[in-house]
C-alpha cells in the first residue's frame, strides 16, 4: 500500500521514471531466477520426459520404465526400505527430540547438553556413517556394541578352553579327526570304548590348535596307571610329526589337553560324575560303581561363546525363509536398516530437540502451572497438556523428517557393505546406482526420481498451504 503511494509520488514528481525502478528491482531477481530455471525447474521437468525414454534418451518408450521399476526386485527392495525408514525414523527422532527438549528444561547444564546433541548435525553424514560402521563392527575388538554384548554374554555363556568357531567353518568333528578312540555326539565327544572300575580310557584328539595348548601351558601327555575302583586315562593331542600315522598310542612329545571338562556316562547315557584333566591331560574318576562307563568330553569345552552380531550384514529381523524373492524384497526387515536408523537418530535428534525446544519455550506456562496446581501429576501434565499444545511443532518435525528420510542416501551408501549392499538400498541410492554407476543411464533412474518427487509432493503442498495461510 505504502509502496503504491510512493510509486504515485515518484511518478508524479517525475524524479524517477517508474519503469526504471521497476526494471532495477526486477533485475535483482535475475541471477537467482536464471539459476532456478536452468538448474532446478527445467531439469525437473526434463526428468519427467527422460523417464519416458530409453537409457540413452534416444527412443520413446512410454511407461515401460515405470513397469521396470515395479517389477525389479532391487528397486522393490528400495521401496520397502524407504517404507521402513519413513515408518520408523520420523517417529523415533521426534520422540527423542521431545524427551530431550523436556528434560533439558530441568538441568543447569542445558546449553552444554544441547550443543553436544546438536553437534552431529554439522558432521558429514559420510563421516558419521563410517564411525558408526565401526561401532557396529562384527569383531568385539573393533565394534563397541558387540564388545558390550560380549561382556554381558560371557557371564551367561562363557567360552570354553577349546573354542570351535562355527563362523570359521570349524566343527567338533574336526577335533576328533580320523581317530579311533572317540566319536562326535551332538556337540560333545564320547569315547568309543567303555570301561569298568579299575579300567582305563585314553582319548586322542587330532586337530587341536597348538596355540591353544601353548596358551593353556600343556605338558607332555602321560598315560596313568590303572587304579582299583577308579576309571583313569589321558586325553591328548594324537599327532606326532615323527610318526604322523600312529594315532592310537601316546607318543613322546605329544601334549596332554589340560582343563578339559569330562563327564562319566553310564550305559543309559546318564552322566554320573564329572572331573577335569590335569596339565598333562590326565584324569581320574574315583569310586566308580558297578557297570561299564563311557567318558564324554562335554560340549562346554568347545563353546566359542559370543562371536559378534552381524549388525551390518545381510540378516533380517523378520523371518524370510520360505518366501519367494519378490516377497522377500517386500517383507523382510534388514537388521542393517536398524543400525542405519540408529545412526541417523544420533545425527538428527538434535534437530528435533532444537525445534521442539523452541516450541516448548513459546508455550503458555500458565496453562502448565494451572494443570499442576489442579493436582495433575508430572506425567499427566506432559501427556495431556504439553504434548497436545506442542502438536503443531511435532507435526513440523515429523514432516521435515519424512522428507529427509525419503531422500536418505549418504548413510546407506557408506554403511552398507557385503551382504547388506543388496538388502539396504533406498530410492535415492537406486537413482544413483541405476543412473550414474558405469556411465549415465537416464531411463529407469529418471522414473525412480519422478516417483520420489511425487512422494514429496504432499509435503510441498502442505508447505504452500502453511505459507499462504501466514
Amino acid at each position: 500500500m505504502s509502496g503504491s503511494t510512493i510509486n504515485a509520488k515518484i511518478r508524479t514528481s517525475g524524479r524517477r521514471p517508474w519503469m526504471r525502478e521497476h526494471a532495477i528491482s526486477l533485475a535483482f531477481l535475475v541471477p537467482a531466477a536464471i539459476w532456478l530455471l536452468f538448474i532446478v525447474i527445467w531439469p525437473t521437468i526434463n526428468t519427467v520426459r527422460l523417464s519416458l525414454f530409453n537409457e540413452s534418451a534416444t527412443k520413446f518408450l512410454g511407461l515401460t520404465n515405470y513397469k521396470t521399476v515395479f517389477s525389479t526386485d532391487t528397486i522393490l527392495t528400495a521401496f520397502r526400505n524407504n517404507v521402513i525408514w519413513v515408518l520408523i525414523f520420523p517417529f523415533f527422532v521426534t520422540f527423542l527430540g521431545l524427551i530431550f527438549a523436556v528434560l533439558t528444561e530441568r538441568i543447569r547444564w542445558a546449553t552444554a547438553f544441547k550443543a553436544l546433541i546438536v553437534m552431529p548435525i554439522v558432521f558429514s553424514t559420510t563421516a558419521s556413517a563410517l564411525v558408526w560402521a565401526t561401532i557396529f563392527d562384527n569383531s568385539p575388538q573393533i565394534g563397541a556394541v558387540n564388545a558390550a554384548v560380549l561382556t554381558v554374554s560371557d557371564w551367561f555363556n562363557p567360552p570354553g578352553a577349546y573354542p570351535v568357531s562355527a563362523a570359521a567353518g570349524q566343527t567338533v568333528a574336526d577335533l576328533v579327526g580320523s581317530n579311533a578312540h572317540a566319536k562326535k555326539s551332538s556337540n560333545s565327544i564320547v569315547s568309543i570304548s567303555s570301561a569298568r572300575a579299575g579300567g582305563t580310557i585314553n582319548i586322542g584328539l587330532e586337530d587341536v590348535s597348538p596355540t591353544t595348548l601353548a596358551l593353556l601351558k600343556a605338558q607332555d601327555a602321560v598315560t596313568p596307571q590303572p587304579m582299583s575302583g577308579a576309571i583313569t586315562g589321558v586325553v591328548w593331542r594324537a599327532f606326532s610329526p615323527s610318526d604322523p600315522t600312529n594315532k592310537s598310542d601316546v607318543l613322546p612329545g605329544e601334549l596332554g589337553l589340560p582343563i578339559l571338562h569330562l563327564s562319566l556316562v553310564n550305559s543309559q547315557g546318564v552322566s554320573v560324575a564329572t572331573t577335569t584333566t590335569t596339565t598333562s591331560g590326565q584324569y581320574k574318576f574315583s569310586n566308580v560303581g558297578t557297570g561299564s562307563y563311557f567318558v564324554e568330553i562335554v560340549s562346554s569345552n568347545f563353546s566359542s561363546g559370543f562371536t559378534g552380531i552381524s549388525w551390518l550384514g545381510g540378516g533380517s529381523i523378520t523371518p524370510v525363509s520360505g518366501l519367494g524373492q519378490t516377497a522377500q524384497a517386500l517383507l523382510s526387515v534388514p537388521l542393517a536398516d536398524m543400525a542405519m536408523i540408529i545412526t541417523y537418530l544420533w545425527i538428527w535428534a538434535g534437530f528435533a530437540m532444537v525445534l521442539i525446544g523452541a516450541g516448548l519455550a513459546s508455550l503458555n506456562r500458565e496453562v502448565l502451572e494451572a494443570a499442576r496446581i489442579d493436582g495433575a501429576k508430572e506425567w499427566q501434565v506432559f501427556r495431556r497438556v504439553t504434548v497436545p499444545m506442542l502438536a503443531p511443532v511435532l507435526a513440523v518435525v515429523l514432516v521435515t523428517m519424512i522428507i529427509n528420510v525419503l531422500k536418505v542416501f549418504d548413510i546407506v551408501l557408506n554403511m552398507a557393505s557385503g551382504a547388506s549392499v543388496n538388502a539396504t538400498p533406498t530410492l535415492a541410492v537406486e537413482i544413483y546406482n541405476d543412473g550414474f554407476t558405469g556411465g549415465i543411464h537416464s531411463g529407469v533412474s529418471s522414473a525412480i526420481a519422478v516417483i520420489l518427487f511425487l512422494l514429496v509432493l504432499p509435503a510441498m503442498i502442505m508447505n504452500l498451504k502453511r505459507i499462504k495461510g501466514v
Partner: protein
Amino acid sequence: MTTTAQTSDPTKRRHILRRMLPARGPSNIVLGIIAIVWLVPTVSLLVISLRPEAAFGVSGWWKALLDPSSLTFSNYRTLFGQGFVAGGLLDSLMTSIEITVPATLGVVLFSCFAGHSLVFGRWRGRDVVFLTVVALMVVPLQVALIPVVQLYRELGTLFGLNPFGTIPGVIIFHIAFGLPFGIFLMRNFMSGIPKDLLEAARMEGAGEWKVFYRIVLPLALPALASLAIFQFIWVWNDLLVALVFLGGNVHTPLTVFLYDQNHELQANYWIISTGAIVSVVVPLIVFFSFQRYFVRGVLAGAVK
C-alpha cells in the same frame, strides 16, 4: 480460580512451589547418560585416529583410554606429510574449500538480491515467485541430476566449456539447490525491515543499489549469517553432488575422499578415521563460533 484460593495458604504455597520445580536429580542422571552415549562415536573416532595404525582390529579403541600414552599423532603426520598429492587428504581438504566457499558466497549473494527484490520490489507477481520458491524447497536434488549433466555436456558442445567433471560444475549445482531455502530465509527476514527506512533513503535520491547495500544488507546481517553457516555446512558435507558431477576428477572433496577410501580402496581405517576428523573439524569450528546463528537457521529452515 482455585489457584488464588490455594496459594493464599502459605504452607500450601510452598508445597506447590516445590512441585512446580520438577525433580532435577533423575533428569541430571538420565541426561548425563545420554550425553555420554552421544559423545561415544565422536570420541571413538578421535581415539582411533590417534592410535597407531597397527592397533586397529587388535584391541578395541576404548582400551587406549586406559593408556593415553599410547596415543600418537603419527597418522596425521603421515597423511599431512604427503602434501598436496592428488587424491590425498590435504588435496581433498583444499578441494572441499574450493567448492564450499564459492557455493556459499553465491547462494548468500543471490538470495540477498532476490529477497530484496521480493520484499521491496514493485513488480507484479512477487507472491507467485515466492510461492514457487517455497515449492522448490522440498524438490529432491536427485530429480535434477541427469538433466543437468546433459545440460553441462551441451554447454560443452556449444561453447567448448563443459562444467561436468569440474569443480565449477559442482558449485553451479550447489548454488541452485541452496537458493530456494536462501531466498525463503532472506525474504522472510527482510519483510521485518521497516519500509519507511527505504522510502526515506529513496526520497533522498538513493538508487536501488545504494538502498540495498547501505540499508537492507546491514540490517539483514543476522539472517545472512544463518544462511551462510547453513549453506557452508550443507555443501561441505555433501557427497552425492560431488560424486555425480566430479565424475572421474582426481581432485575430490573430503566426503568423496572418505567414500573412496572406504569403498574402492578398502583402506585401513586409520586413514578413514584421520580423514573423518579433519573433515569434521571445519564445520565444528563454524558451529561453535556461530552456534546462535546456526540454531536460528535450523528453526527457520524446518521445511527443507
